[in-house]
């Protein structure tokens, strides 16, 4: 007989809910009327690798991990550091010991509290050779004490320089002074993982049925190569501020299909097919979006012994760099707000002023005249044309740039350039083994500071595939590590690069996508594009 009142009560509560949704909610800050359906659907070009914070190695996976888990520090819409699980941190004068204070109301989605031990576990897990994480190098650049020995198996993971002083205090000891260490804790590799779940479920712990996370969302569905769904985590400490209920990521491998489905309203955020931005900006001015990214696009000369003799002559390198009309590439091929590059470091990088390098100041005609002059001086001409091979990895965009560059070199310098595209892994292998003459390169900043780019061209860098080596650059970059303001060093390095021309800077990336006008809160000013779905919301149309 108890049934009746109970169901009545339920009915009443339901009615209440139903009626409350009639009075549409408004955004707590801006006061905009919110849409009833707070589901955000976007597309991925490819399946993400993992949602395990210590394993994930791709950008689209990291975006999901950032929603599911929360690290010590977060970024706001402008990329500034704001508290995450940690409410703040202190550091010593040498900046090699950091102490983070954790909030006491942070909870895992199974109700356990988030403690400093979860971070200790996660960081040890990152460095532990048994995890075999492809991102364990991140622990290395964090310069945690003993990280090298732990990674090589010479020391137990417990030796790592990270300790939980108590449940809410985390101490980190570094081998060298890192002024920007706190900013590194916004990286997904440093997010905590739930030891008890990892232990019981093993490799399956990231499956929707097992996963426990501490971020604003929990993973509720994942069908590889089709879709994944994350939904609001009601136990998240700041759950009240979350507006989006559900985030759906669809895998769509073809950019044109992606765009078609965006037009068919199946997606809230979609891809801009390559070369279509200008057109789409005209047709959908409020939806097509472009903003600078922390990435560069360049061509690297092989300066090692296996490289061609011609490239050992700086005049040849200069000539090739001068002969490229960057405006044609950015305005006619890419057409999406990319920026002509004459420096290696993008201008959008924090604290970096683009130095006025000489060839950046010329007009294109002057550059072409200079290019002809330089190449003639180097002894190449109609009877002795420069010829070399340019390799790039298979992709529509790279192909177009390669073809354009080939024609520019041909028309300006009379150079005979052979193009060879290689499939990605083959390309990496060839470039990494200096088996090329001129090769495409691109680099995206790991963090928002010029050294993330310029370190690449120092002699010890593992990514310096052209084997450029300049003692002054090496020492300037080494000094920069401990300087409070290293911008003068970076400027000097860029000037050296412009003279030596070990790489030809082509352009600096722009991020482009289509976003429906009712989706608000996109952090356009965050050049690293660290997006937190909990900051997004949909307004009523």
């Amino acid at each position, binding site marked *: 007989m108890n049934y009746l009142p109970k169901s009545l009560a339920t009915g009443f509560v339901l009615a209440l809910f139903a009626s409350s949704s009639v009075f549409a909610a408004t955004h707590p800050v801006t006061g905009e009327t919110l849409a009833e359906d707070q589901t955000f659907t976007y597309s991925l070009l490819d399946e993400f690798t993992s949602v395990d914070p210590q394993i994930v190695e791709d950008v689209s996976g990291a975006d999901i991990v950032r929603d599911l888990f929360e690290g010590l520090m977060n970024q706001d819409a402008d990329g500034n550091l704001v508290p995450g699980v940690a409410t703040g941190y202190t550091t010593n004068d040498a900046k090699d010991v950091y102490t983070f204070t954790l909030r006491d109301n942070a909870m895992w989605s199974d109700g356990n509290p988030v403690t400093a031990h979860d971070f200790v576990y996660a960081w040890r897990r990152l460095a532990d050779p048994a995890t*075999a994480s492809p991102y364990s190098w991140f622990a290395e650049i964090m310069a945690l004490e003993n990280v090298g020995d732990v990674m090589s198996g010479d020391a137990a993971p417990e030796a790592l320089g990270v300790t939980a002083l108590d449940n809410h205090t985390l101490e980190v000891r570094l081998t060298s002074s890192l002024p920007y260490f706190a900013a590194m804790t916004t990286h997904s590799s440093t997010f905590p993982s739930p030891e008890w779940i990892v232990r019981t479920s093993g490799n399956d712990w990231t499956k929707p049925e097992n996963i426990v996370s501490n971020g604003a969302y929990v993973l509720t569905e994942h069908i*590889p190569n089709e879709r994944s769904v994350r939904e609001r985590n009601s136990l998240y400490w700041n759950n009240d501020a979350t507006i989006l209920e559900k985030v759906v990521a669809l895998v769509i491998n073809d950019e044109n299909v992606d765009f078609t*489905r965006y037009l068919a309203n199946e997606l809230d955020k979609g891809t801009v097919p390559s070369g279509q931005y200008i057109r789409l900006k005209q047709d959908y001015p409020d939806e097509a979006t472009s903003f600078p990214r922390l990435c560069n696009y360049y061509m690297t000369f092989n300066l090692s012994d296996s490289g061609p003799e011609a490239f050992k002559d700086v005049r040849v390198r200069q000539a090739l760099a001068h002969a490229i009309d960057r405006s044609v590439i950015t305005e006619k091929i890419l057409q999406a707000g990319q920026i002509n590059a004459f420096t290696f470091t993008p201008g959008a990088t924090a604290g970096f002023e683009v130095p006025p390098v000489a060839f950046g100041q010329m007009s294109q005609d002057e550059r072409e005249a200079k290019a002809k002059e330089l190449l003639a001086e180097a002894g190449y001409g109609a009877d002795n044309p420069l010829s070399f091979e340019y390799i790039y990895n298979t992709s529509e965009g790279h192909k177009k740039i390669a073809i354009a560059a080939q024609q520019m070199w041909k028309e300006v310098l009379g150079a005979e350039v052979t193009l060879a595209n290689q499939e990605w892994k*083959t390309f990496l292998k060839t470039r990494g083994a200096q088996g090329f003459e001129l090769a495409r390169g691109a680099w995206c900043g790991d963090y928002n500071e010029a050294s993330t780019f310029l370190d690449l061209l120092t002699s010890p860098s593992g990514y310096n595939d052209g084997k450029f080596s300049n003692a002054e650059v090496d020492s300037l970059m080494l000094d920069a590590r401990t300087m409070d303001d290293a911008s003068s060093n970076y400027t000097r390095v860029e000037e050296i690069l412009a003279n030596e021309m070990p790489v030809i800077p082509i352009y600096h990336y722009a991020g482009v996508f289509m976003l429906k006008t009712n989706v608000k809160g996109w952090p356009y000013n965050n050049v690293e594009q660290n997006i937190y779905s909990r900051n997004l919301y949909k307004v009523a149309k």
Partner: protein
Amino acid sequence: MINYIIKRIGIAIPTLLILIAVSFYLMHAAPGGPFTSERPLPPQVLANIEAKYGLDQPIWRQMINYLSGIITEFDFGPSYKYHDRTVNEIIGRGFPITLKYGFWSFIAAIGVGIPLGAIAAIRKNTWIDYLAVGVSIGAQVLPNFVMAPLLIIVFTLWLDWLPGGGWNGGSWEYLVMPVIALSTSYMASIARITRSSMLEVLNTNYIRTAKSKGLPTKVIFFRHVLKPSLLPVISYLGPAFVGLITGSVLIDIYFSTGGMGYFFVNAAFNRDYSVMMGITIVVGGLTILFSLIADLLYAWIDPKIRY
């Protein structure tokens, strides 16, 4: 018959072994490995990873480990790219999807192809015949990577009848476009085969005799023409089914169905050795199975064939 089946299975096993060995060596001969990336891993990290997956051992050793894993535990190993999934899971998830739209495409290809071919044959040299032949060659030569995006533009964007992609457990509205895109060229082949073999049968003396005896056309057609005309169609079914599975690469790319085809191509590019091997083995096994079934069907329908 039993002997024949046993013999065929006896060939199947070494075939699969050869296939495994060749693909295994080819794969490892490809430049780069699963962990080659834009940011080369520090040697220590790479060594840790390779040790974990046993990639530091000689190739023959790796192959034996791999094979024994399959034979003793039916374990195809972990994916090197999708770290939290095993190959068994990937195949277990993707293969039923491929099979499902493959099966319906198969049904569609037969269900439309045979009647189309039959009508063309019966009405030989009329406009119906020309139309059917034209349509079927047209369908055969129109690449499905042209057809697939067109289908999406028409049915999703313009007409708004069907979802533009996804699988959703395989409900019908998600099946329609993949099946159309995948089945047309096979439909066309089947129509052409049916037409020419039926023409041949219609020209035989015993059909002429039957006609002259005044048997009703329907009876002649269903009792005497249809069955022998289908023999070449049947021998085409085995390869056709395998072709459907290969064709699934395109379907998965355009319709985000999550089937096995795209996993294979992706695995080849990612050097995800175990996924690539797993799929090659499954597809190879199926190829063998289907050519066996097709041969048996053939023998069953055609009493002239003895094994």
